[in-house]
């Protein structure tokens, strides 16, 4: 085990896999000569050369489409989106091509393709650059959607993604890039898809979340424990497709109360699926409705004070926890 940043975990996962398998390559805008806007790919062009580290034109649909063509012939392309916002222009390639060709070909091809990049708000990038896309992609069958919340998961889940046979939307949290955490040294350390984890144990309220909001939930849980003696159990979903709700259900069987925390807009957001699933399965165990903590339902404003108002904060989680405990 060594302490590593979320950024380095991602970088190492890619480099170890490139070392292990010559079929792995990476492509994206300004990942080579420029070394990456977030420096995730720094040094890679030099190490692997331009055949395996491909600087592309600004053409996200072209990037994903060509990568699908590579993947079907057995390469394992990783497509870096400078930010996941730009992947919308490739939505058709992702959702109608990558995610469907296995099915409509009757299973004749694998599509081992990873599309990864940072998403999320927080540094005043305004309306077109601050979004998160988990529910957008997770609605569609045929593609896995991964939302790591720790450096270890970033590494382990990315390795699973690269070694797999299916397209993966690997949604990183830009705000977590600098976060440090223990990461196993074993180069074969992987984290399987579809295994949610209990990130913190607790007996009073279940908080279900993922990515950055899962970290925020942990902070709040510790505070609530110290300051008010409320013990929250935090469930980290890790992957939204496949979605493993079992640990959340088990937790609700214990706590009888749950909230969901997500960064993006409430309507038709990820939290709706999670809340609806909990209610469907655990209705008789619930002592309160499952509340959702979410960002405001507005395009992201530029001004710092407005942006802060638009995103969920500790106090929102605290309030929701107390609300399901009928303490508000």
């Amino acid at each position, binding site marked *: 085990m060594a302490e590593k940043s979320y950024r380095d975990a991602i970088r190492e996962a890619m480099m170890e896999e490139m070392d292990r398998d010559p079929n792995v*390559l990476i492509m994206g805008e300004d990942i080579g000569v420029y070394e990456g806007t977030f420096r995730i790919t720094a040094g890679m062009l030099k190490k692997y050369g*331009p*055949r395996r580290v491909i600087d*592309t*034109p600004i*053409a996200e*649909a*072209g*990037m*994903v*489409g*060509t*990568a*699908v*063509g*590579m*993947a*079907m*012939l*057995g*390469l394992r*392309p990783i497509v870096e989106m400078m930010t996941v916002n730009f992947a919308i*222009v490739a939505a*058709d*390639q992702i959702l*109608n*091509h990558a995610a469907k*060709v*296995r*099915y*409509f*070909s*009757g*299973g*004749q*091809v*694998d599509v081992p393709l990873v599309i990864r990049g940072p998403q999320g708000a927080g540094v005043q990038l305004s309306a077109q650059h601050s979004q998160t896309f988990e529910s957008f992609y997770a609605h569609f*069958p*045929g*593609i*896995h959607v991964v939302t790591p919340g720790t450096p270890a998961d970033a590494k382990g889940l990315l390795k699973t993604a690269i070694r*797999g*046979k*299916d397209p993966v939307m690997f949604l990183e949290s830009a705000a977590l890039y600098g976060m440090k955490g223990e990461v196993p040294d074993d180069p074969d350390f992987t984290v399987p*898809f*579809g295994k949610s984890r209990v990130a913190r144990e607790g007996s009073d309220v279940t908080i279900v979340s993922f990515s950055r909001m899962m970290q925020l939930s942990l902070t709040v849980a510790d505070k609530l424990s110290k300051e008010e003696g409320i013990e929250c159990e935090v469930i980290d979903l890790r992957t939204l497709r*496949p979605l493993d709700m079992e640990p959340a259900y088990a937790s609700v069987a214990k706590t009888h109360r749950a909230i969901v925390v997500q960064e993006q807009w409430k309507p038709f957001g990820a939290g709706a699926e999670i809340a609806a699933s909990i209610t*469907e399965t655990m209705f008789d165990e619930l002592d309160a409705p499952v509340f959702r903590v979410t960002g405001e339902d507005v395009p992201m404003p530029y001004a710092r004070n407005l942006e802060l108002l638009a995103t969920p904060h500790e106090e929102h989680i605290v309030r929701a926890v107390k609300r399901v405990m009928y303490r508000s």
Partner: protein
Amino acid sequence: MILIRRFEEASEREFRRGKIGGYLHVYSGQEAVAIGVISALKKGDVVYCGYRDHAQALALGSGPSRVMAELFGKSTGISKGKGGSMHLFDAANGLYGGYGIVGGHIPLAAGSAYALRYRNSDNIAVCYFGDGAMNIGSFHEGMNMAGLWGKDGLCPVLWIIENNGYAMGTSVERHSALTDLSARVRAYNIQTEKVDGQDVFAMRGAADRIVRQIRETGKPYCIEAMTYRFSGHGAADILQPYRSKDEVEKHRDRDPITIMRKRLAEVSGLTDDDVKKMDEWATEEVAKAVRFAEESPVPDGSELFTDVVAEHGPHPVSEDNG
């Protein structure tokens, strides 16, 4: 080519009989474009097309029975009945689909070409698309990337514009600012050539030379095949208000099958009797294919849930649906 024509006629008939569902886009009139190029390929080359893909599948050797079964939505179809007419797929024979989003497959072909070269193979990718497909973003992005990668010899792809004059009901003049479609391709530093798409010998001749060049250089090349479709855009295109009967009749004078017959009569003494025999054979093959398709079983219900992903497949909601 005769087989293709008979096959397409049969598929239109079976569509009207309700045996084939969905959209059905046939290749009648354009046969030389598929045959002329695909006959010049070798094992390991990969072919991409849009939804007008029956001819390519047949040319690659998928077999009329398995293709017809696919159109019938049967388990014996080349994609187990899951894809249908628009998504023919036969990886073993080099057919990598069969795509329904206009132009969406163009970048895929460029990527496959890159993959072939990445592995130091001398195989190439071939990509068919219509004149109308040249107006969508993925065409542009795919072409530019092919042009760029081609500079390093890393994109052995042969683009084939199936310029049949129309995107559904919109003529080339009405959908493209410049009707010299090849000019657009040259703007990505890709060599182009207009070829008579009604003449299979012209197509084959060009293909032989060009395919060899692509194998050697790893650079993309584009054939603009000037062709015409005799049937409607799809089976639902009955009225065809965008073109006159006269226009269609005029083009029937340049039926690729007639042109081929005449030419073969000249150079190798093909007789009317030979042709009749070929025709009978093709008719019989197609009839067999229809019988095969008809008699084949529909896919098992469990097939609904297979092939979605390799791992972590779907949970049947029918289990929770009430």
